[in-house]
């Protein structure tokens, strides 16, 4: 199995080739897009250059940064809150059967209430405020994180917990050194999916009742069918995520997975 994944520390040279391996599919996509857009010659499928142009002028005008900043702030805050609460809830439910039984129905319910509904209700009951917006997003996201972490907590190796118990590890050590490492895969998938999902929910929430942010902007663009600008704003956010992946998530994951060999 020579193809198998082995996240060893890559040499600088390998790092270069790795970056390239990651980049060319994107470039290919860009090229494809360009060719198709040129062929189609439709306003609903702008060329990448047109999108870049829109991106650039939005950047130059400062508008993009302002709205993106607002959105990122909301995303960051909601993300932290939702992860914290969701992870806690998920572990609790995965570990203790009683809690699982008691909260399962509520979790399923929370999971399946449309974002539209929670958002509207939050806005109505708590006003068209920033905290109502954050609350709406967090409520939407918590069940997803909890569902994921619950499965993780259920799959934790009982043998290793026995070691922790017999050697009387403190709660914090038990959690951070025995429990958590087994949940990393679940945490990473939750974090990645979570960021993406929260960004999408923030868009809806901004669309419905905020006066700034990318969602608000996209709403206006959408009204006039300005696909170019919509794509520009979407890509700006995607670029932030790419940075986050390359600078934080991927290195962290590689580090934490070193022991897998």
């Amino acid at each position, binding site marked *: 199995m020579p193809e198998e994944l082995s996240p060893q520390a890559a040499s600088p040279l390998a790092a270069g080739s790795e970056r390239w391996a990651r980049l060319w599919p994107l470039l290919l996509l860009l090229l494809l897009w360009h060719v198709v857009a040129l062929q189609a010659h439709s306003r609903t499928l702008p060329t990448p250059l047109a999108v870049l142009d829109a991106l650039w002028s939005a950047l130059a005008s400062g508008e993009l940064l302002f709205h993106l900043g607002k959105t990122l702030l909301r995303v960051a805050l909601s993300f932290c809150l939702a992860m914290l609460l969701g992870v806690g809830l998920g572990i609790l439910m995965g570990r203790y059967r009683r809690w699982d039984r008691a909260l399962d129905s509520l979790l399923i319910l929370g999971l399946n209430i449309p974002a539209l509904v929670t958002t509207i209700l939050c*806005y109505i009951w708590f*006003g068209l405020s920033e905290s109502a917006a954050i609350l709406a997003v967090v409520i939407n996201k918590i069940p997803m994180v909890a569902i994921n972490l619950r499965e993780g907590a259920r799959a934790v190796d009982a043998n290793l917990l026995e070691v922790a118990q017999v050697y009387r590890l403190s709660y914090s050590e038990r959690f951070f050194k025995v429990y958590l490492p087994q949940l990393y895969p679940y945490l990473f998938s939750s974090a990645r999916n979570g960021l993406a999902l929260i960004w999408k929910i923030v868009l809806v929430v901004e669309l419905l009742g905020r*006066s700034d942010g990318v969602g608000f902007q996209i709403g206006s663009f959408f009204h*006039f069918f*300005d696909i170019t600008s919509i794509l520009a704003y979407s890509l700006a956010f995607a670029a932030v995520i790419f940075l986050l992946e390359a600078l934080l998530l991927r290195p962290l994951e590689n580090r934490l997975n070193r022991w897998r060999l």
Partner: protein
Amino acid sequence: ADAAATLRVGVLQFGTVNWELDVMQAHQLAQKRGLNLKVVPLASGDASTVALQGGAVDVIVSDWIWVTRQRAEGMAYSFAPYSNAVGSVMVKADSGIRSVADLRGKSIGINGGPYDKTWLLLRAYASKKFGMDINSAARPVFAAPPLLNELALSGQVDAALNVWHFDARLEANGQRPLIKLPEILAGLGVDRPIPLVGWVFREDWANQNRDTLERFLAASQEAKALMAKSDAEWERLKPLMRTEDNATFVALRNGYRNGIPTCEYADAQANVASVFRILAETGGDRLVGKSRSLSEGTFWNGFKLPTCPKN
């Protein structure tokens, strides 16, 4: 065009346009003109523009700003007047706000986004009349129309600028208009009603199916005429309107009737053009795109209302 021509109209299921279509269907106004009318119900305003561009429907209702903007981008849509009714600024009946100048420091809820045309006109009006930049002097917040109405009713915004039929509901619930659009327009030097929303379709499609479209517009006119005079017709429509009380019902009926364009003033096009210029100045590129002036052909040349008598 042949007698069995079919026309697909995309409308909000419970939107005001659907009332008129319902009248058309109930009285076979389209059929008797040899037109097969197919109503495609949709769930949101944006859905109708998507449907039009996706080729799923032939005609929707939108405004001429949208049309001009699309034309500037090379998508030749055209417009035929459908209604003159646009929103007002609504405040609580006992509110201390007496004039636009009093909005200073107050929160004002605006439907849709910052490029809502009434909002832009109000901005221009405030600046011309009071030298006030209302965008920064007041606290504008933007929300979807139904949400905005709830916020207005529960007092979470001091004033609301919504679409007319939502205003009607507010009025029925004890709010009063602070300023109506004609007044705003008058303040800006346009003292006659102008058509604001209309039937929107692709220009090339319209030219190829001129006959079909004309029959449809004629049917629309006949339905409007019926709705203008017959109260019984409105009683029939009542379930579709989903009014919770009679006051709302009456407000809606009157609002609709007031918006019916019966004739066109000789200087209407010029007025529209000057309103467009005002909008372009206030809204900027974001609103009008690359076009600085009303695009030639925005108003479809195949349809004309009778000219209004000079008053």
